[in-house]
């Protein structure tokens, strides 16, 4: 134990003396702290702004004056996706998805206003998020700090002296490992603080704990990679070149190759394309605005039979409202079929890209991090689904009002003059059919159970590295 401490202390003393390592660590800590602060402020702002817009949008809807109910269907409603507490560390796909959706009758709109569209386009590398710092920059700093931890001793001949004097190879390796790890943990500190902050602002403790644990695992892996390369290389420059090469491969190449591969293997038809397919299918289903559309003949006959009358004007309900309800339902079934297929495609693309985690610990860390913080593709899809169910509910509720609270004759003659237009309105109290939208990330159990695979990927990397180090330790001299 004492030996391990001595080795560690000696390594740290060397860093202090040469200054390079201390400067690197200092820059690392400052950058990661800055990223946590900037990102926290930005995400807080976004959260407040979106909550405010959500409230305004709901208030606007409820406060609409007396109207024809179908006009409210077209007036529509906006929903905004609230960021999850951990997005102060990992904003995930937030910047790329668009965070607001306009909900209206007869169609499913896509999310609007992705932040990336508004960015200066300076860098697609990433924004300065703490997640990016820790996943990409901190490993580079660990390399700069530790590439020579073993090769230096070897080049100076001190490694030989140490071992012949009876110091165990294992102790030297553990000492070096802990010293590199220590510098990584220093750079991890801002993230730990931010996670505590996320816990305070409502994230479950299991989630934040596993989040931090994931990053500790990641730092362990990179420290092990640095130690391994340094102990198998004969010279410092070889160790350095190999480590930088590995960093480029793991942090830059594999993720991008993964995403390009996924996009080429599974082609996803855009929303426009499915829109056309939807319209083709709908041409046979009828236009809900036009109650005389031949597609509604059957509906008409069914209703006439049900109420035992001969003319739609004699129905106790508003036939136009019945048509609107019916066609919205049929339409939504078709729309959902295509929307689900699209999400399936996107998910299978993401699945392919995520499998590249077996080729790069950075990819596994990134997936794990987004999964646990609830800022991944699945969360965005759930947002789309919840928005859609809200849309369907309020549109159908308005159609119900149209069907039962608005007289058919008044409805048909609504455009004749101002009098009839007034008669074809319903009371504004009906607008409270809109339910409140509050978007929450998935439950912690869901997020944890879905991140098992990626935790396994990280453990695989750690196991692999420890195994390699063990093997290298046998041929250390």
């Amino acid at each position, binding site marked *: 134990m004492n030996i391990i401490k001595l080795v560690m202390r000696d390594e740290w003393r060397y860093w202090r003396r040469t200054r*390079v390592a201390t400067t690197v660590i200092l820059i690392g800590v400052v*950058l990661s702290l800055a990223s946590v602060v900037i990102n926290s402020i930005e995400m807080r702002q976004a959260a407040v*702004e979106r909550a405010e*817009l959500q409230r305004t*949008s709901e208030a606007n809807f409820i406060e609409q004056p007396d*109207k024809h109910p179908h*006009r409210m269907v*077209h*007036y*529509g409603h*906006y929903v905004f996706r609230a960021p999850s507490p951990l997005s102060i560390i990992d904003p995930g796909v937030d*910047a*790329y998805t668009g965070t607001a959706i*306009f909900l209206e009758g007869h169609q499913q709109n*896509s*999310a*609007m*206003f*992705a932040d*990336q*569209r*508004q*960015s*200066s*386009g*300076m*860098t697609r*590398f990433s*924004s*300065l998020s703490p997640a990016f710092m820790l996943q990409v*920059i901190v490993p580079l700093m660990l390399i*700069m700090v530790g*590439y*020579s931890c073993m090769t230096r001793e070897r080049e100076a001949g001190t490694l030989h002296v140490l071992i012949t004097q009876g110091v165990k190879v294992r102790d030297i390796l553990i000492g070096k490992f802990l010293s590199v790890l220590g510098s990584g943990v220093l750079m991890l500190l801002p993230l730990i603080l931010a996670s505590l902050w996320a816990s305070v602002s409502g994230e479950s403790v299991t989630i934040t704990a596993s989040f931090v644990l994931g990053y500790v695992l990641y730092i362990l892996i990179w420290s092990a990679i640095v130690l391994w390369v340094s102990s198998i290389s004969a010279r*410092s*420059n070889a*160790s*350095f*070149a190999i480590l*930088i090469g590995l960093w480029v491969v793991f942090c*830059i190449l594999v*993720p*991008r*190759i993964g*995403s*390009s*591969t996924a996009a080429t293997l599974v082609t*996803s*038809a*855009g929303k*426009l*394309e499915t829109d*056309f397919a939807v319209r*083709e299918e709908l041409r046979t289903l009828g236009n809900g605005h036009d109650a005389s559309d031949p597609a509604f003949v059957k509906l008409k006959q069914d209703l006439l039979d049900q109420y035992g009358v001969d003319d739609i004007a004699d129905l106790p309900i508003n036939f136009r409202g019945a048509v609107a309800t019916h066609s919205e339902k049929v339409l939504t079934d078709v729309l959902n079929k295509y929307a689900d297929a699209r999400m399936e495609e996107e998910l299978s693309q*993401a699945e392919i*890209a995520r499998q590249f985690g077996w080729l790069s610990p950075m990819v596994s860390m990134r997936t794990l991090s987004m999964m646990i913080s609830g800022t991944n*593709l699945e969360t965005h899809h759930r947002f789309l689904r919840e928005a859609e169910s809200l849309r369907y509910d309020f549109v159908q509720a308005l159609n119900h009002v149209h069907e039962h609270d608005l007289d058919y004759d008044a409805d048909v003659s609504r455009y*004749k003059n*101002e009098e*009839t237009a007034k008669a074809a309105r319903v009371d504004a109290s009906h607008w409270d059919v809109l339910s409140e939208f509050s978007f929450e990330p998935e439950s912690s159990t869901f997020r944890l159970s879905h991140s098992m695979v990626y935790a396994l990927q990280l453990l695989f990397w750690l196991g692999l590295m420890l195994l390699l180090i063990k093997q290298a330790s046998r041929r250390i001299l």
Partner: protein
Amino acid sequence: MVLFSDLVREFRFLSKQRYIVLFLFAVFLLSAFAVWSGVTDSHQQQVAIERLLEKDAVDRESVLAKQVDYGDAAYYSFHFTYDEPSPLAFAAMGQRDVYPWKHRIRMLALEGQIHETDAENPELSLLGRFDFAFIISVLLPIFVILLLHDLRSAEREAGRYDLLVVTAKNPYKLWTARALVLSAFLAAAMLLPLIVGAVVMQAPLLKTGLMALLALGHLLFWVVLTMVVGRVMMARGQSSPRIASALLAGWLALTVILPVVGETVINQLIRSPNGGEIVLLQREAVNDAWDKPFAATWDEFLKTHPEWAEHTEMESSFHWKWYYAFQQAGDQQAAELSQAYRDAIVKKDHAAGLLSLFSPPMLVQRLMLSLAETDVAASLAYEQSVRDHHRALRLYFYPLLFEKGEFDSQELADIPVYGSHTVRY
């Protein structure tokens, strides 16, 4: 002067260094992959556009055939607009996965439609694409640093340095020749796939040449920088890893830190209206019009279309001309905000352009995007072309709606069709 025989000698020497040959081969494979995926992507986009054009025509035809008045015809006919990838887009896909390049619009208020983004998979966009521009702007410096940082110091550390310098007639020639051969092979490994890609995509010669020149210029910059830093630091007795760390720190600062921090600062300094406000404003304006007196709509509408002042009488409480007039009025009310939104994009792009003068990798990337017409300017030009088309639709339908003529389905044959917008530079 470096003689040909020097180059041949260095070539023989380097070709025997297995790890350099392997390294260059790896670079070639990366570049080939980048070009291949770029070509596939471009091709898929072109095919998608053709397919959508066909479906669009069928859809509109079948919709128009059923219509009995002009208002319905305008309401139910959608128009597909698109931005075709330029022949060089395969080399620099830029922001095409984030910026919208296809829309379906109709004659309703445009502000409610134009901000829709038919975006690609966000998780893949987050990971970023691997295109040729990325290799040149981000990876090339690392290749150069790995290959050339220990040009001299490796010889010294191997104990051959003094011998080499003493025996060479002119020691400068030795290093220049070696650096020249190495960078020539590196350039060939990266550029060969580009040329093949350009031939496949039938890219214009001039622009392909400029793109290659950009790559060579960036290569030259990093070769010179690496050689100078290597020489100066070696003279001060620094080891190869030290030299490489210093160079990599420079790379990190120029390619990662400066752009990432710069982006954060630019976003803070240049405030842009929240996009949500544009659509909310437009929606309120359009929906309120139903409950306002007709005159309110006409006043706003006639500001831009005074020629219809004599045609605003309403014989019932609904008329399509009034409906489309308040759609236009809604756009007009949101116009200022929408313009501010676009101005902010331009300003941010401009600021980024200034900042990139301090970072050669970013400068190279921006120039490549502009050559490939995948930059912010190109995206805004496309957006403008969509606006122009929407305007053409309005100008086409207004006479039909305002002048009381009988419906004639023959008239609809001349409905404006979106043509790919012309080259923007």
